[in-house]
């Protein structure tokens, strides 16, 4: 066990426990105010809980409670690098000096620290921007430098607090690919509200709601077969496993799905996941044909009203239709219908 976390903060009504194995990435999912950031702040040593114990690689970082002797290792001595929504690059230092800051703080000589920094900048794809000041970088570039800076500090545990939440949607796929590469084999806690990040970047996921862990498990399982309505609603995505066949996905149950590939095209035969929103699914009583559309013959398992929409569930899949359309279609549980979604609405990710 690399990280053991348990903490209670009374005035925020937070009581959370989880563990992260060495080399594992754990995603912490949850709505605002569910205690995600509190958990990170406690791990980073910025907040001391009323009760709790944080152990990283056998070293007690925090031990708090009325009966125990209090341990509170200072934030700088924890080897837990924190990366948030904003890159927070030091504005008076170049990109290179920003990344070299961690190694320098650990006593590495200047020239060696710069060499390490350049290597990490190259690793995250911004090696040519080393001399730039933070004000001369775009949001995506700055966040890449911040990733390099956190990794260059050689942390035993990397804490990521919604690292992609503030970025332009256009730069997300590329940064996600970079993160996947550099996070592999590292011990990471990733706080996010994006289920896709949890699925693609994390091995396991814990879901928080109102300061408690309500669900945990392997990312794919939790997100595809959520037990709590919260995850179902939060995830709000149809996710279908399959194998890439050159130009389409072949799902485990034999459906054929075409869509837009996120990033570089995968090699044929690699496992992928197809994702699309319930709102982009149309429901028909009769089978539909047309090349740009994917269609699925399903049997309605559940009808769930959501404000002015009706969510039509059919096993793993969900579709949102307006109440008017639902009335026209005379939808009811057990009925056989066709779910149809345009190829342009389906995103295909490498698993």
């Amino acid at each position, binding site marked *: 066990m690399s990280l053991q976390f348990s903490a209670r903060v009374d005035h925020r009504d937070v009581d959370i426990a989880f563990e992260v194995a060495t080399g594992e990435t754990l995603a912490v999912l949850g709505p605002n105010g569910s205690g995600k950031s509190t958990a990170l702040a406690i791990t*980073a040593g*910025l907040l001391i809980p009323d009760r709790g114990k944080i152990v990283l690689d056998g070293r007690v970082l925090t031990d708090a409670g009325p009966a125990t002797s209090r341990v509170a290792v*200072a*934030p*700088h*001595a924890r*080897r*837990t*690098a*924190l990366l948030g929504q*904003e890159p*927070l690059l*030091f*504005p*008076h230092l170049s990109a290179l000096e920003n990344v070299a*800051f*961690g190694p320098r*703080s*650990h006593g590495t000589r200047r020239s060696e620290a710069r060499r390490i920094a350049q290597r990490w900048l190259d690793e995250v794809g911004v090696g040519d921007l080393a001399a730039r000041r933070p004000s001369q970088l775009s949001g995506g570039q700055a966040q890449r430098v911040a990733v390099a*800076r*956190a990794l260059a*500090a050689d*942390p035993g545990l990397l*804490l990521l607090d919604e690292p992609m939440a503030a970025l332009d949607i256009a730069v997300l796929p590329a940064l996600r690919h970079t993160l996947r590469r550099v996070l592999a084999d590292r011990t990471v806690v990733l706080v996010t509200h994006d289920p896709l990040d949890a699925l693609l970047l994390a091995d396991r996921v814990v879901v928080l709601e109102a300061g408690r862990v309500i669900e945990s498990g392997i990312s794919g399982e939790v997100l595809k077969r959520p037990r709590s309505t919260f995850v179902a609603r939060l995830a709000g995505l149809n996710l279908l496993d399959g194998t890439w066949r050159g130009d389409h996905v072949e799902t485990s149950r034999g459906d054929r799905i075409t869509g837009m590939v996120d990033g570089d095209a995968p090699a044929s035969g690699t496992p992928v996941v197809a994702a699309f929103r319930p709102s982009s699914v149309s429901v028909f009583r009769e089978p539909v044909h047309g090349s740009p559309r994917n269609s699925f013959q399903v049997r309605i398992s559940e009808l769930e009203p959501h404000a002015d929409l009706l969510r039509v569930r059919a096993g793993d899949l969900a579709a949102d239709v307006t109440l008017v359309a639902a009335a026209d279609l005379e939808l009811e549980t057990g009925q056989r219908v066709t779910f149809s979604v345009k190829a342009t609405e389906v995103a295909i990710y490498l698993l």
Partner: protein
Amino acid sequence: MSDRTVGLPRWIYVPAVLGAAFVLLPLVAIVAKVDWTHFGSLITSQASRDAFVLSLKTSAISTGLCVVFGVPMALVLARRDFPGLAVIRSLVLLPLVLPPVVGGLALLYTFGRRGLLGSTLDAAGIQIAFTTIAVVLAQTFVALPFMVVSLEGALRTGGQRYEVAAASLGARPTTVFRRITLPLVVPGLISGAVLAFARSLGEFGATITFAGSLQGRTRTLPLEIYLQRETDPDAAVALALVLVVVAVLVIGLAGQGRGTR
């Protein structure tokens, strides 16, 4: 290109112009009064030069002391929170509103021969009152709050986010202070130092009460001007103009310091 903002009421220009005239007119008056034919010799007399050099020297030293003590004070006030902090802040900033003569008296009863610390210092053979050291202490006393206020504002505006980021990268508090906190508040530090220097340069009340008026030792430029006003008004006016020029230069520097923030 020019930005159009919401219009001001026209009548507002009347008091604004009157106020500006009230500040500028006396400066014009003093320039008009200057005896330009003897200006050079008036400001280069031995007494004038002594006062000028003493003023620059003591103001520079007291500005240095303001940096040495003001930076830590501002950091504690901006970054820590404990019971009584608000009271301590008010007391520390008291010299801002205290009449300087009162400050001088207070210093005299602290460091004077029979003062709180003075008697001990006297026994050790150290005398402070009516020496150049007293001038520096008087100036530091009145100028320190300017440094603290200016820096505390800069520290609070900047926030602690960069410091948290630096600590999470493994930097010890001293490293964070040296490499992150200090570089980021340089503009605030410069404008604080400039204000402290200006305040020291203009110090009169506390100095004459606590340090007296000995030529070359405690008689700074403002004291010299006040003295000359009786015996040689032309010299007083010439020296006053020198102080005005220095003050204008200082304000220009402070403005630049703020501009780069």
